[in-house]
Structure formats: structure tokens, C-alpha cells
């Protein structure tokens, strides 16, 4: 179980792996996440599922190397196994025919956006996808997103591909053009989601965001993932991960995400000094 069947590097420090997890693949719905541990003394980290194949019994994970666990995962090779994988967790995305749905994905957030885009498309929505990254090399999963979108607009901050600018500017452009939009789904770095909500709030456009707070158990037992939505404390793992973006306190989320910055650096340095896993790509080549 939890064996890596395929693995590729799809960008600098960005990996995609297909993992054998038949029970999770069978039960998983768009928007849900898993929690994994790489090894016995590993931490539990949440990752949103980027794709699944219930028949083959596999799930696809996409991750960026930022901390000890994700770097370690970067060194894992086909044939290696994860110690633990628990899921699906969290509430699934509310899928129905809204009309026109705009999916906004930034950076690595495009991966979790993919199954939702697919779900929204299958539910009969007219789907417009806006995906962006800092630069062309960091764009991921554009082909997959294209297949399940009626329109696709790509932007890069440096103008190296597609529209020169931020995804928020593209979204603003759509709104200014008078495009009838019924729902926005935004997933990406917290500042991006916050910026998207600042755009949609002005025209009171319903906006769903998928939050990524720090978690431990992921089942509502510990409360590490506290977020504030409409002034109320919610647990990201069981009340989310998706929330009404117009009501989310993004500043609090950013502060809480920085809680272990110090220890994370210590752990990462420690990890680099005592390499684990398969050494062939260590650490984070590309």
C-alpha cells in the first residue's frame, strides 16, 4: 500500500506522483485531502488530491518542496512506499450546476483545482479557468485543466507566457467585460486567494477558497487548523477545507501558517545534514 507507481518533476521543486491507495481512490471526492507520513518519525502533513483513478486504485499528488517532509518526498522514488496515508478527509466540494464557474489557480494551487474544475464541468457548468504562476516554468497542469474547461486563460507575473500580469487582473478583466459569473473557486497561495476575494467582494461574487492551515490529525480532534470565517472559529479539517472566501480572515491564516517557521528551518537543515530516502535526486535537483 501507498507505493509510488509513477513520479516526475513537473517544475522546479514541484513533483507529481501517482500512488497506490485503492481505498482512498474509491472514496475520494473533489475537494477532499489526505494526510500522509513519509516514515516512522515523520510528521503528518495534509495534501489535496490532484487526481484519482478509482479503477486502478491510484491517487495523484502534486507538491512543492518547501519543508522537511516535502523535500523528503522529493527524494522518494518509484517503488518506495509512504509509511501512512489517511483519507479522504474534509468535506467534498459542493458541485452543482451554478451556471458559469470561474476557477482561479495560482502556482501549486492548480493541482487541487483540477478535480474541482473537472467536477464543475461534469455538473454542466460553463467553466472558465484562469491559471497563473510567477513565470512560465512554474506553470503546472495546463493541459489537464484545458481538457475540462470551456475557456482557459493563462497568466504569468513576468509575462513569459500568456497574459502579462496576475490572475486577479485577468479576473477583474472578465468582470469589467460584464461576463456573467455565478461562482468563483480560487486556490493558491494565501496572498493570491486574499487578492481574488478583494476583487470579487467588490461585486459581491460568491467565492469559494480551499484553505491549507497546519494540521495534525485531520479529523477534528486537535484544532491546530483553526481558521476564522465570518468571525467564527472553524476547523479547516472537518468544517473545510473549502470556505466562503469573502468571510475568511486571511491575515490570521498567514500568521498561523508561520507559527513553526523557526523550527521548520532547523528541521530542514537537520534533514539536509542527515539525508534520508533515495539519494538519486537529492535534494530537489532541477
Amino acid at each position: 500500500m501507498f507505493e509510488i507507481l509513477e513520479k516526475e518533476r513537473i517544475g522546479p521543486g514541484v513533483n507529481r506522483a501517482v500512488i497506490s491507495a485503492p481505498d482512498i481512490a474509491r472514496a475520494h471526492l473533489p475537494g477532499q485531502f489526505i494526510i500522509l507520513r513519509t516514515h516512522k518519525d515523520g510528521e503528518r502533513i495534509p495534501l489535496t488530491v490532484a487526481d484519482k483513478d478509482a479503477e486502478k486504485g491510484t491517487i495523484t499528488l502534486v507538491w512543492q518542496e518547501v519543508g522537511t517532509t516535502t523535500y523528503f518526498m522529493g527524494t522518494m522514488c518509484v517503488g518506495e512506499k509512504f509509511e501512512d496515508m489517511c483519507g479522504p478527509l474534509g468535506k467534498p466540494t459542493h458541485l452543482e450546476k451554478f451556471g458559469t464557474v470561474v476557477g482561479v489557480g495560482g502556482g501549486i494551487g492548480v493541482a487541487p483545482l483540477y478535480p474541482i474544475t473537472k467536477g464543475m464541468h461534469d455538473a454542466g457548468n460553463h467553466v472558465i479557468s484562469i491559471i497563473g504562476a510567477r513565470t512560465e516554468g512554474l506553470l503546472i497542469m495546463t493541459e489537464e485543466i484545458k481538457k475540462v474547461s470551456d475557456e482557459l486563460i493563462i497568466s504569468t507575473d513576468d509575462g513569459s507566457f500568456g497574459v502579462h500580469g496576475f490572475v486577479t487582473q485577468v479576473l477583474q478583466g472578465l468582470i469589467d467585460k460584464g461576463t456573467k459569473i455565478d461562482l468563483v473557486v480560487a486556490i493558491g497561495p494565501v496572498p493570491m486567494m486574499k487578492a481574488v476575494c478583494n476583487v470579487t467582494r467588490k461585486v459581491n461574487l460568491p467565492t469559494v477558497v480551499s484553505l491549507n492551515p497546519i494540521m495534525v490529525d485531520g479529523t477534528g480532534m486537535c484544532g491546530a487548523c483553526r481558521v476564522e470565517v465570518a468571525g467564527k472559529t472553524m476547523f479547516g479539517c472537518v468544517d473545510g477545507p473549502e470556505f466562503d472566501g469573502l468571510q475568511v480572515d486571511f491575515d490570521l491564516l498567514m500568521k498561523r501558517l508561520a507559527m513553526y517557521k523557526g523550527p521548520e528551518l532547523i528541521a530542514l537543515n537537520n534533514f539536509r545534514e542527515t539525508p534520508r530516502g533515495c539519494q538519486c535526486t537529492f535534494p530537489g535537483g532541477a
Partner: protein
Amino acid sequence: MSDQVSKPTKKPKIPRQKMPEQNPIERAHNFYEVALGYDNDLALLEASRCLQCKKPSCIKGCPVEVDIPDFVQLVKSGDLMGAAWKIKEKNSLPRIAGRVCPQESQCEAKCVVGAKGKNEPCAIGRLERYVADYAALHDDGKRPELPKSTGLRVGVVGSGPAGLTLSGALIKKGVAVTVFEALHELGGVLVYGIPEFRLPKAIVRAEVDELQKMGVEFKTNWVVGRIETVDDMLEKRKYDGVFIGSGAGAPLFLKIPGENLNGVYSANEFLTRANLMKAYLFPQADTPIAKGRRVVVFGGGNVAMDSARTALRLGAEEVTIVYRRTMDELPARTEEVHHAVEEGVKFQLLNSPTEIVGNDAGWAVGVNVQKMQLGEPDASGRRRPVAIPGETAHIECDTVIVAIGNAANPLVPTSTKKLETNKWGNIVADLETGKTSRDRIWAGGDIVTGAATVILAMGAGRKAALSMLDTFGIG
């Protein structure tokens, strides 16, 4: 002279034998077990204090009704293996119960030796622990033969004390059992909640191994309610019965300003990081924890004591328990409070937190408290704390642990069709049988009672097992 010789001298009273412990100054900085356990001499002395009552009342104080006088008699006669088996007839987890049971309010509260007033009761819990540890150390591999399989199959939600006890009771009657656990480790609160220094995890592991050897199947990383519902277990997996022992496990907060600041933990999170995730070994183990210099703990129960003592062991210079009543009303076990005091935990009593103060970076830097006094008794019989107008104080700190209890985790109850719950979200179940509003579904432990003790959960597991066997017609 003759008088003195002829008059039979009264046998000197043997006092209750103290439990050897690690010295408080040393142990406040390590995670090794605090209580060291009796040796054979102490155990024999203590066992000799038992009066072997004809109508033993101690048994009535035990939620799983261990035959206490019988096992103590076996200790006296030197048959420690026999004593262990005697306990195991009723309690499949004696090494755990011997450590975490609140005996002082159960079996020992009913002990006749103590009831006479002048003397302290027989130390039943310490004897149980001694016997069970001895048996584990001198394991001869002999096990009672298991009966033939009945073909019946039961699914268990949660591998905490309720689920483990039930599994043990069922497998011994030839019922196949599969336990589904959400976390990666087996034992529930025994591994994520109760700290290593009170209950070494190796002991939990050994008890689980024992059940595994008997044939109980375990499935970790399996969140019932998400990956599969209880209804799926009955319909697709065709279990003859399902037992829900999913625990309390949704932490409560005070809902005061500042509770979402960095450095503020629920006791569940703090203890899970420290125990289950071994954050005290960081960075050898990957999970970090905020190692506070000055730590404030809200609450006065066992979990508050565990949190405070864990914070000390992680290196805190000062740990203060803030509680709104007095020492007399602390809900924690006397022994746990005593241990905390010995180790240097401070108590700021008759104080109720009103706000957690933070800095610009979003970290907690202090706690504002309101001074209280005790007024009239409330519904719980304890005197209600009342605010003294205008009397407030500030406590500087960098870490706050909120240990004020748990609500029911809604994941399993709400994903099970037509399962009756009460207004707090706890599953409604008969306390004598564990039967719920649904056929073939039993429940027990904290998910039914709200946060209680390990032994009550074990008692609920045992009762539900008996009820299942009865329903299956193989009681």
C-alpha cells in the same frame, strides 16, 4: 509481668505501602515513567493488608468487576501468574488500568480497610499494576485456548480503551473482530493523550500485540465516516454488529479574544504533538512544538495536569495552571495534582481567563484573568465561582494550553443514518448494554458519556461485548 506475657499483643498495623517514584526534580525533565512500581516485598506487605472480605465491596467499585480479593489472595500465596490471569478474566488491559484508573474513587473508595476511618484502603491499583507487569515480564507464552470461530464478525470504530476491551472480550468467544483506527498508531487516547511518563507507549503496544496474537485485525489510517460509513460496514462488509468507540475528541475553547493566536494550543493538540508525534525528540522526529518558556494552562482536570507536566518536561521555566475554583474543587486525581505540585507546577486559583493578549506577529504574550470567589453551589454541587468586580490581573506567557474539555466529534454520529444523539452530539446508548437507537450498532466510551475515564470506557466496552454476545445467542 505475667499480665504482659499472657495478653496477646495486638499485631502492629501495616501502613499502606508507598509507591516508589522517580524523584520530582529529576523526573520534571525527562519523559520516563514517574511511578516505578512495587517490588515483591512491598507487594506482599500490601497484599497482607487485604481483609479478604466475605462480601467484598471493592468489586462493586470496579467498572469491570475484577475479582479483587481473589487476585490479592493469589499474590499473598505467591502465585503471581495466577493472580494475573484472575484479573484478566475481567480486565484484558490490566497494565493500563493499574496505571491510569482513579482507584481512589472506585475500588479503593469501597475498601473496608479504608472504610474504618483510621486506616488507608488497600492499594489495589498498585497491586494490579505489579501483578500485570510481573506477568508481562515472565510471560510463559501460555494462553487459554480460543474457542472455534462462530462465523460472526464485528467491526469496531476506534482503537481506544473501549474498542480494545470489547475486541478482547469478543475474540475470546470466537467472534472475528476488525478494529478501524483513524490515526496511524493504535490505542486512541492511550497513545495520543496520556503522556509517556504516566503510561509508557510500549505497554499500550504490548497490549495491542496481545490482541493481535489472539486474532484481532487492526486497520489504521481509516477514518470511519469519510472513507466508509457505519452503514457501509453493516451493508457492504456485512458485519453482524458494529461498535462505535470513537472517543470524545473535539476540543473546546473558551471563546475569549486571542484564542487563535500562535502559541495557543488545545490540550489535545499539545499532547498529540508531544506524545503521538514525539515532538520532544524534534528535530530527530519531524513534528515541531512550541517549547514555551512561560506556559499557562487553563483547566483543572487530569488533562490539564498532563499538559502542564508535559510542558515542564519540554523545558518550560514556569508553568502555571489557571483554574477558576480552588484546590478542593480540582477535578483531577489527587495523585496527579500532587505530582504536578511536586514537580514545580504553579497554581493560580480562583482566576478565570478573560483574554489572551498577542503581539503584532500574532503570538500570545500574556493572559488577562478575572479574580473569582466561591459562591453558592451550582448544579454539579461544586461552589460556583463568582467574579470579584474590578479585580483583574495579567500573567505574562508565551504559550497557552486550553484544557477545558472536549465535545463529541460529529464525524461518526452524523454520518450514520438515524443514529440518535443528544443535544451535545453524544450518541444515545444504554449504559448497561451499549445498545443504540439502531439495530446491530452498539456504542460506548466518551462518544456516549462525554469525556470520562479510561476504565469507564473499558467498562462500556465490556458491557457492549456481553450485550453483543447475548444478542448473537452465544453469551
